């Protein structure tokens, strides 16, 4: 990823020239907005990405430009590879081909491999074959497009569109991945939402660190799924745990690994008069309806945390047992607002900036995140 930063104008942001009005970024790229947090020891920047927001935090602050450029490359690559909403993505090309055997790019092969490993690990609580179930529920475009006309009540389907029949996931076992070779039966639409953002955060942390020559520390948040790497600040990275952006929440410190949150309180829309959300129970094809509305999980990698937080919502009453078996610190919030900390997650008595325990090794990366760099052109080969 360091190569991606070559040829940039040298500036005060460690490789990138500062842009206008507190922005930073490569010429022609989406600019990153600088964010003031009150600490000069770190530099923070944010921009929209993948239908959500991305945030880069680094120390020393001079590394910000390089880290943003590295994150740009990762986000653009992931979008080209795995977006379900982009007609020219490799995944869309694969869906359009309608089943068969495909030679994937390294990047999409890793993304599908992580999704399948997560499905195996969670016993099917997450399942990348829920694509058709989500489409049937109306989640067939970027969520920004669903909500842009006026909130929940007026979102897609609010006009009386009849609900599609619930479509249970065909099952992740039907999809076979052998290295970059994917075999997928006709009619299966993949959705990598349970792991893709976490994967993106993991990749971006690795890329940003490489760009900085391993110097300092970095935190990447992609839609609230956070991975950290390098040397953390003293006592860890200060992070807020909240159900929705802008809310007050628990303050914790994350020294290593990752933390991710899944919730049914957001990405909701109406379909045929009923309110639905984006976390689907693979066995029923309907939105998960367990007792927990929000799950935050700490894990060794962000893809693990992303998958585990989704799995906890789908698991419902079995979430606590599953998380205990997985050995992951977690914070669950019930529909009536009760908060439950599990497996070492710091309780309120731990006070402000309680440390989140370091979680065990990855369950979704064979031996750490894949190290195969780069991707081929969108569309891959067949």
């Amino acid at each position: 990823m360091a190569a991606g930063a070559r040829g940039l104008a040298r500036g005060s942001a460690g490789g990138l020239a500062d842009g206008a009005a507190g922005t930073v970024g490569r010429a022609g790229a989406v600019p990153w907005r600088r964010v003031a947090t009150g600490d000069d020891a770190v530099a923070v920047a944010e921009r929209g990405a993948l239908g959500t927001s991305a945030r880069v935090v680094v120390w020393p602050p001079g590394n910000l430009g390089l880290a943003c450029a590295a994150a740009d490359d990762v986000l653009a690559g992931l979008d080209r590879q795995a977006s379900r909403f982009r007609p020219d993505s490799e995944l869309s090309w694969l869906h359009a081909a309608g089943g068969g055997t495909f030679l994937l790019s390294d990047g999409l092969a890793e993304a599908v491999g992580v999704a399948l490993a997560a499905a195996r690990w969670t016993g099917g609580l997450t399942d990348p074959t829920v694509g058709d179930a989500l489409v049937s529920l109306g989640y067939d475009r970027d969520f920004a497009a669903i909500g842009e006309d006026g909130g929940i009540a007026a979102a897609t389907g609010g006009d009386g569109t009849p609900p599609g029949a619930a479509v249970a996931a065909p099952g992740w076992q039907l999809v076979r991945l052998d290295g970059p070779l994917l075999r997928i039966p006709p009619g299966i639409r993949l959705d990598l939402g349970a792991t893709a953002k976490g994967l993106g955060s993991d990749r971006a942390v690795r890329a940003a660190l490489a760009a900085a020559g391993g110097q300092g520390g970095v935190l990447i948040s992609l839609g609230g799924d956070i991975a950290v790497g390098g040397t953390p600040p003293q006592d860890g990275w200060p992070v807020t745990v909240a159900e929705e952006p802008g809310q007050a929440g628990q303050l914790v410190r994350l020294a290593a690994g990752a933390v991710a949150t899944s919730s049914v309180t957001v990405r909701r829309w109406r379909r045929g008069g009923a309110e639905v959300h984006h976390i689907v129970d693979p066995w029923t094809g309907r939105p998960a309806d367990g007792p927990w509305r929000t799950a935050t999980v700490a894990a060794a990698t962000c893809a693990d945390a992303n998958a585990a937080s989704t799995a906890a919502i789908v698991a419902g009453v079995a979430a606590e047992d599953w998380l205990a078996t997985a050995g992951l610190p977690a914070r669950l919030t019930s529909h009536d607002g009760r908060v439950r900390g599990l497996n070492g997650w710091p309780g309120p008595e731990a006070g402000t900036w309680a440390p989140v325990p370091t979680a065990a090794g990855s369950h979704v990366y064979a031996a750490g995140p894949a190290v195969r760099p780069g991707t081929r052109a969108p569309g891959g080969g067949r």
Partner: protein
Amino acid sequence: MDPSIRDGAGRDGLRQARRMSNWTAAALIAGTGVAAVALAHQASVAAPAAATGNAAAGAAPAAGNTAGASTQAGSGPQVTHSVATTTASGVTVITTTRTVNGKTVVTRVRHAPATADD
């Protein structure tokens, strides 16, 4: 053999043995010092590596590094303000106010931030 010669040879041998012993002792002391320096150097190199948090960077944490077992303290700067929020993904709440027929209507709209790159 003349006893005086034998005594002289014995004294020489003793002197030589003492000299060798001194050299050996000096070598041992020097060797121990070098080893200590080398160990100290290795320890100082290993310490930051252990604090880097290898999980998100790629490698799986060491076996036995289980939940609740440890928290890694960094050697980075002191950071006292929250730098990020883990939250449900990317949906923001925007409150807009407008006047309809003389009445103020407040609308809370939730949607993902508009993005220019996707």
